[in-house]
């Protein structure tokens, strides 16, 4: 605790260097851009821009990638409010009341409240990481193989439980992801597994390939099919003249912002959950605590403040398990760890002690980045709206080109391009069969780690599987996992889970 101030001081010292401020700025700028453009999510965007960070110093690369990540949350909400188009999934709920506010001529206050809420949530998130990071990392250093295995099991099951749609399919997707994850050379025996004799697969499937295929290529196929050309975008012609929310707006929003931040911080820290579920939950929560729930859907500022704070808090807090335990909570976080590995840094609890400037610099930069977004976004709104008029028929071939170059530049391997097509088709098929790809990508990353920790745990226990239950910390993780599963199978809650996801459509 008493170390907090010097640590943060070191962080800010690192983050405010001219170079790092620039990386941060580029990150949030590009992130907002990506968030504004529909049909390209944060995951695909980071995957595409990963090669651009290869030549940067590690701190700069991470700062920029993190900036892209939380920048997308801001950008997504801007378009949700102004044109009723969520730039990415976490801002779907913002559309409901945000767009209604805009229609009532209150676009300015809606945008301002979204920015203020996000900034507050981002600040709290930054403080939480700074507070929770060191003790968690210390605890994680004591973890053995059984604890890691159980923790990862919990994260994976949580991601399936919190995914939308059928839970059984989501769990099956976890197993598929784990299998894709172990493609390549087995570290223990040196044996090639599932490579079909292709030498390009000896090092395993590249994360960039899987992510770009499922979330880039697959998305484009879906969008092309929907054929919802840009003409459907009812661009708001009304000018945004008064940006500042009234005193009453602020008073109404204070509660939702606090509650949203708390919900987001909780779901964000939990491995497997993320901004989208946080935003949905925050909206449901606001509707529940409101004195008059009928105002929702008609431009209630609470319906913007809550979810917007929640998704930003979650985006921020997702860094907690990623940085302290070395276990990514989402596909995007896995990509951040991938970037770390490319920079030659092994992710895990030791990063904080061995590379303090990296850890604390990143945290400080997130706060600075959030501040930049508030300043950057409000005056640039006109520019973002203009961007929306770029038709999709021009947008998607450009995305394809960037994706192809991005994938190829990682290893200069043509096989990577062909595999991207395979995963693109898989992503398209998954969408047709209503199988949620998020749990798969998380399992894909954790696959080799899980096998290794299972192997070690069983080796130490001489093949006795009860080791996972006799070690207390491991038993707690597994107990929570089972609890999560049981609770979800209970009919009452199962129904509720469906309601939480369907509510926005119903309005």
């Amino acid at each position, binding site marked *: 605790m008493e170390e907090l101030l010097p640590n943060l001081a070191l962080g800010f010292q690192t983050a405010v260097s001219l170079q790092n401020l620039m990386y941060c700025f580029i990150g949030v700028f590009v992130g907002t851009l990506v968030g504004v453009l529909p049909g390209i999510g944060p995951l695909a965007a980071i995957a595409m821009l990963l090669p651009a960070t290869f030549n940067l110093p590690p701190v700069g690369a991470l700062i920029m990638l993190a900036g892209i990540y939380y920048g997308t949350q801001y950008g997504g909400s801007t378009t949700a409010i102004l044109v009723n188009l969520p730039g990415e999934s976490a801002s779907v709920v913002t559309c409901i009341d945000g767009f209604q506010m805009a229609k009532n001529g209150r676009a300015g206050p809606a945008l301002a409240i979204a920015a203020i809420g996000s900034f507050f949530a981002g600040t709290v998130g930054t403080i939480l990481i700074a507070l929770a990071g060191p003790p968690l990392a210390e605890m994680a250093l004591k973890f053995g193989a059984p604890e890691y295995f159980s923790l990862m099991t919990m994260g994976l099951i949580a991601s399936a439980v919190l995914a939308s749609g059928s839970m059984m399919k989501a769990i099956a997707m976890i197993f598929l992801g784990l299998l894709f994850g172990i493609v390549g050379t087995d570290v223990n025996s040196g044996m090639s597994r599932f490579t079909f004799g292709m030498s390009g697969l000896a090092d395993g499937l590249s994360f960039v390939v899987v992510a770009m295929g499922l979330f880039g290529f697959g998305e484009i196929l879906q969008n092309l099919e929907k054929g919802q050309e840009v003409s459907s975008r009812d661009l708001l012609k009304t000018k945004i003249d008064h940006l500042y929310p009234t005193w009453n707006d602020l008073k109404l929003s204070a509660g939702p912002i606090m509650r949203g931040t708390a919900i987001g911080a909780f779901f964000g820290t939990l491995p497997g959950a993320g901004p989208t579920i946080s935003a949905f939950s925050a909206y449901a929560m606001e509707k529940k605590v409101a004195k008059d729930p009928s105002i929702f859907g008609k431009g209630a500022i609470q319906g913007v403040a809550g979810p917007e704070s929640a998704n930003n808090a979650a985006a921020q807090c997702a860094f907690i398990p990623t940085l302290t335990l070395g276990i990514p909570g989402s596909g995007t976080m896995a990509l951040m760890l991938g970037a770390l590995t490319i920079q030659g840094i092994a992710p895990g609890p030791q990063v904080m002690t061995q590379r303090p400037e990296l850890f604390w610099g990143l945290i400080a930069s997130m706060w600075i980045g959030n501040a930049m977004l508030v300043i950057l976004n409000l005056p640039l709104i006109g520019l973002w709206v203009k961007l929306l008029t770029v038709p999709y028929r021009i947008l998607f*071939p450009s995305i394809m080109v960037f994706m192809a170059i991005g994938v190829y530049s990682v290893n200069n391997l043509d096989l990577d391009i*062909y595999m991207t097509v395979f995963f693109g088709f898989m992503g398209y098929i998954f969408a047709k069969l209503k199988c949620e790809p998020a749990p798969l990508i998380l399992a894909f990353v954790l696959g080799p780690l899980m096998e290794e920790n*299972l192997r070690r745990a069983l080796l130490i226990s001489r093949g006795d599987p009860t080791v996972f239950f006799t070690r207390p910390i491991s038993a707690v993780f597994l107990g929570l996992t089972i609890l999560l599963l049981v609770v979800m199978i209970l009919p009452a809650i199962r129904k509720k889970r469906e309601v939480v996801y369907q509510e926005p459509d119903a309005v």
Partner: protein
Amino acid sequence: MNIKGQEDFWAGVMFIGFGALAIYLSLDYPFGTGARMGPGYFPTWLGIIMALLGVAIMISGLRVEGPKVQKFAFKAMLLLGAGFIFFGWAIDHVGFVIATATLVVLAAAAGRDFRYKEVIIMAIVLLIGTWALFIKGLELPFPLFWWR
């Protein structure tokens, strides 16, 4: 046989297929014991559990009413796939310029309306832009043409 929920049914079939494939391929890898896991141990178990889940999902597709699987956009799949695969082959054989330009044209052809002039302008703009960013700026070692 009457399939009530096509989405579930075919998802189940997919998981069974992948599970069976994993189990079959893992037969070639030593299984080992719990205490000394061989390379076949983990994937075999993953395959078995996934196939079982697949069976359960398939059965629910037979019993529970659900939506039909929507039609696939084969034309878009074909054109985008071809564009990518050509890019993968071409970038090392005939160079960045032809690889990228072809990808733009094939991708654009997958869209609803294809406007020749627009596509040509787009290809040129994208070529210059990506060349400046990736080859000049980030110094990625792509040959521009086959003679270089």
